[in-house]
């Protein structure tokens, strides 16, 4: 429901003024969380970004892909099916990672990409599991594997 709070807050004139947004008041529509016009009229969309992943892995970027395991819109099996077609070499085999003494999810580290699930999280992982998401983010920034205990 938090999306409806945002709809109210960001349409407040004093909030817009404080954020230097819509300064001339000429945007002809209300601030909204998602634009129906854009979604309905989206033009080019690649069928697959897997070739882009291959390019970026070869460019040496640090790439992490995570998945909240209670999302049924872009679920964990969807991501796993897709990533499996990159045919990556396993560097660290599948293991449960931990946060606060509990299993935070499972992870596998490949050459060029780290995949991790987040237990109990939906589509918006940091909303549903903020602490686990934060552990994940810290590990990503540090370039370290997720904690094994």
């Amino acid at each position: 429901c938090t999306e409806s709070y945002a709809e109210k807050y960001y349409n407040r004139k004093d909030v817009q003024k404080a954020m230097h947004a819509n300064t001339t008041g000429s945007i002809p529509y209300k601030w909204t969380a998602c634009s129906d016009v854009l979604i309905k009229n989206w033009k080019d969309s690649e069928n697959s970004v897997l070739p882009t992943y291959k390019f970026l892995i070869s460019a040496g970027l640090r790439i992490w892909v995570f998945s909240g395991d209670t999302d049924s819109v872009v679920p964990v099996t969807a991501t796993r099916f897709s990533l499996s077609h990159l045919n990556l070499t396993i560097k660290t085999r599948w293991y449960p990672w931990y946060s606060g003494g509990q299993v935070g999810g499972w992870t596998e580290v490949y050459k060029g990409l780290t995949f991790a699930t987040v237990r109990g999280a939906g589509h918006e992982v940091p909303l549903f599991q903020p602490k686990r998401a934060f552990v994940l983010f810290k590990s990503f920034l540090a370039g370290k594997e997720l904690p094994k205990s």
Partner: protein
Amino acid sequence: SVSLLQKEKELDRISALPGQPKVAFSQFSGYVTVNQEHGRALFYWLTEASSLPEKKPLVLWLNGGPGCSSVAYGASEEIGPFRINITASSLFLNKYSWNREANLLFLESPAGVGFSYTNTSSDLKNSGDKRTAQDALIFLLRWMSRFPGYKYREFYIAGESYAGHYVPQLAKIIVDYNKKHSNSIINLKGFIVGNAVTDNYYDSIGTVTYWWTHSMISDQTYKSILNHCNFSADKATKPCDDAVYYAMNREFGDIDQYSIYAPTCT
């Protein structure tokens, strides 16, 4: 021009948001024009790190949709420092804000999302992946000129859902740009994406498999979807649509598809 850019940065400084608790970090927000001719301008919100921001990396957050707002989701529900209370009268702090570890840049992208706008209305009807990536690159180059302290800074991109397209696509054109421009100001180190749209065919197979393995749909419906849907086709057929419709409307029940065990918002 340096002093003009410095002035632009200071004009973007947020002194305080209505209902905001006291905080120790700086915030800036405003517009960066990405296409003069069409009048396309993207809105950003920077929440700097809560300690030693000059030593922390910069993380750009992009939301999905396509057409959804980083301010709405990334900043206000997920990784940003503030949460909005139920009456939208005040803000409270997120204990696990990612700005404890990084400077967070939320971008409303493409034009038409949130506060971002275009003066050319047809832009709203012909947006797509390519222009989104191109505009985001121009945004970054111009934004870093306004905030020179972030030039050459360790830089990461993050996002979710349809940003599974935006994030790697932006990363790719930055890599391409950096190959052409030695000493580029964008020091891209990597990216992280969650529940990300990746491949239409494999994502679709995996999604239906998830529905079945999590007992959200019956065996009959699972078989029916697999029999009638050709996920490699550009358009779905009516029998495929019917099978998926049956799953969603007769078998899922009244659930939040984005978090299947969470209560739905009434």
